[in-house]
């Protein structure tokens, strides 16, 4: 992989030690290069990178609010294009909350209108910035501060919203899933998305040490486990052509993934079995 002399996301940011979100953004910016304008929704990413008067962004950056990065990016893209700046990459980042929950409408509008931009959802599967509350992207069984385990609760009782397929249903030219644990696959997709004319969407799984409850050194290992167990499937839909971009040699049991995270620690065999069945069905559907 190409290693730049200087990362376009500067160190000194306030992300937790081992933060996957900064890996996500660093890799994307390095792939896109300097000729890029970045937009971010409110969330860990924005808060950790722009505490005034310091910024970690080496490219032009704008943040407005939590639920509107799709629309803000639409405005930025329109302003650049009307000025004839057709070669500038426009990349918007939103957390899972900012994307699959509160920002869904704004993003849907942006994708439908055909802006030439890339939207990356960095999915850490909960509202981390505000203290690990559930989102529509929180997986079944995960204990969060608003879907806590308890005497009458096993944690989040609904499976994860299938956001990449919702984006695919918009008929946009490029949709992909990715993981920070597979940087070559991810970077390839970012570059492909940037070259695509029109809107592109990447749903990136980003393990979070603080929110998922694993030691900081395991951020990448956790992402790998998600993919190796089939809990997170890497694919792309390029102009309608679906393709799995990474196939684990042998799919490991989901228990290997669940048992290493505090958010799933409470699950009994019955629930683990249920999750295994979900994952099996999903893998079957996508042909993994």
């Amino acid at each position: 992989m190409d290693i730049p002399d200087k990362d376009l996301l500067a160190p000194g940011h306030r992300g937790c030690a081992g933060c996957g979100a900064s890996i996500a953004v660093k890799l994307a910016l390095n792939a896109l290069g300097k000729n890029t304008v970045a937009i971010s929704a409110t969330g860990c990413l924005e808060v950790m990178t722009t505490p005034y008067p310091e910024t970690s962004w080496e490219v032009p950056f704008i943040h407005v609010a939590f639920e509107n990065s799709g629309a803000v990016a639409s405005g930025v893209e329109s302003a650049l294009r009307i000025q004839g700046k057709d070669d500038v990459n426009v990349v918007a980042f939103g957390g899972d909350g900012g994307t699959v929950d509160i920002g869904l409408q704004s993003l849907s509008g942006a994708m439908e209108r055909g802006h030439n931009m890339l939207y990356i959802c960095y999915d850490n599967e909960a509202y981390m910035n505000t203290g690990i509350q559930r989102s529509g992207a929180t997986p079944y069984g995960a204990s969060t501060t608003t879907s806590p385990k308890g005497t009458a609760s096993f944690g989040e009782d609904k499976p994860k919203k299938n956001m990449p397929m919702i984006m695919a249903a918009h008929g946009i030219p490029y949709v992909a899933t990715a993981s920070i644990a597979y940087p070559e696959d991810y970077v390839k997709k970012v570059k492909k998305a940037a070259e695509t004319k029109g809107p592109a969407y990447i749903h990136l799984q980003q393990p979070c040490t603080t929110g998922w409850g694993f030691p900081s050194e395991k951020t990448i290992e956790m992402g790998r486990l998600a993919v190796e167990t089939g809990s997170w499937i890497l694919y792309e839909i390029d102009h309608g052509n679906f393709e799995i971009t990474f196939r684990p040699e042998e799919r490991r049991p989901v228990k290997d993934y669940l048992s290493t995270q505090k958010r799933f620690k409470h699950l009994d065999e019955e629930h683990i079995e249920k999750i295994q069945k979900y994952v099996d069905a999903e893998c079957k559907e996508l042909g993994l």
Partner: protein
Amino acid sequence: MVSIGCVIKTPGNSRNNKTGSWRTFKPILDKEKCIDCDNCIIFCPDSSVNKQHDIDYDYCKGCGICANECPSDAIEMVKE
């Protein structure tokens, strides 16, 4: 005094914030063992490993990802 709209016109100046002080464990990289896979560079959340595989302790938060992802056990985490 703040800038108009709190706009920041000094890109990347979070480098002023030396996050190395957060560290409790310190990665020690043994270049003898290194096989140049670059995992430590690619996965470092704090851009603290350069192309020559030197660790920048000004920013390294000691997360241990580099050590965990090193295929040749070239990085050891030692208590500060």
